């Protein structure tokens, strides 16, 4: 049999694990991401979220519009991309009015708001990671993100983390949208 690592063999084969690749910074898709993440974490899943490109907006320390990033273009993109509180909805954004309406509707109907879901994800110790490559393009550093972000990863490390579980890709709209409000 050779050198078989018994500690690896004794690990549960069907350990429940959900890994989400959050490519979107849209309000509705972030709600979906954090709903899945918190629901899965609550019932015992190990949950990893890998934030990349627009998804990085969700984990910035500065949640509104801010010139976060290095260099002129980085700062400009940082401003227009914004953060959690300035996330647009993916359809019918109406210059940023729709997210405010959604937040009102969610509060009035006792549905967890995006901010509450993020706080729950932190409390449930969901593992949050930032994409090294996207950070490099946008001139972002780990210090620009909330401290719950466990690390900065590349794709190979993410693949290792997600090995043996389910992986979902939460994508962004492929539209030219300057109406982020």
């Amino acid at each position: 049999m050779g050198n078989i690592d018994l500690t690896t063999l004794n690990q549960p084969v069907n350990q429940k694990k959900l890994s989400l690749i959050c490519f979107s910074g849209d309000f509705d898709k972030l709600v979906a991401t954090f709903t899945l993440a918190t629901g899965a974490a609550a019932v015992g899943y190990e949950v990893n979220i890998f934030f990349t490109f627009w998804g990085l907006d969700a984990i910035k320390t500065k949640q509104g519009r801010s010139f976060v990033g290095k260099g002129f273009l980085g700062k400009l993109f940082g401003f227009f991309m914004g953060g959690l509180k300035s996330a647009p909805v993916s359809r019918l954004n109406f210059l940023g009015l729709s997210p405010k309406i959604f937040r009102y509707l969610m509060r009035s109907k006792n549905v967890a708001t995006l901010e509450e879901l993020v706080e729950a994800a932190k409390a449930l110790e969901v593992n949050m990671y930032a994409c090294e490559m996207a950070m490099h393009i946008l001139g972002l550093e780990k210090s620009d993100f909330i401290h719950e972000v466990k690390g900065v990863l590349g794709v190979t490390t993410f693949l290792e983390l997600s090995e043996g579980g389910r992986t979902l890709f939460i994508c962004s709209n492929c539209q030219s949208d300057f109406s982020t409000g």
Partner: protein
Amino acid sequence: MSTYQLDITKEHCPMTFVKTKIQLSKLQPGDLLEVFLTEGEPLNNVPRSSKEQGYNVLEVSHVEGNIHKVLIQK
């Protein structure tokens, strides 16, 4: 051993069990948690998920209308 209460009658997915799980995680072993919830998904899900997570579901009882109480021991 202490008894705590949690009202999730106004909560919706996923916060029904999320709030239950967060509250349970704060308790000491042996503590009791009375969870007030409504019929449907919360009543189906909270006792089942609590058992799956290794907690003892001691009692599920009807309170009034569509509200039920689930007694969970950590």
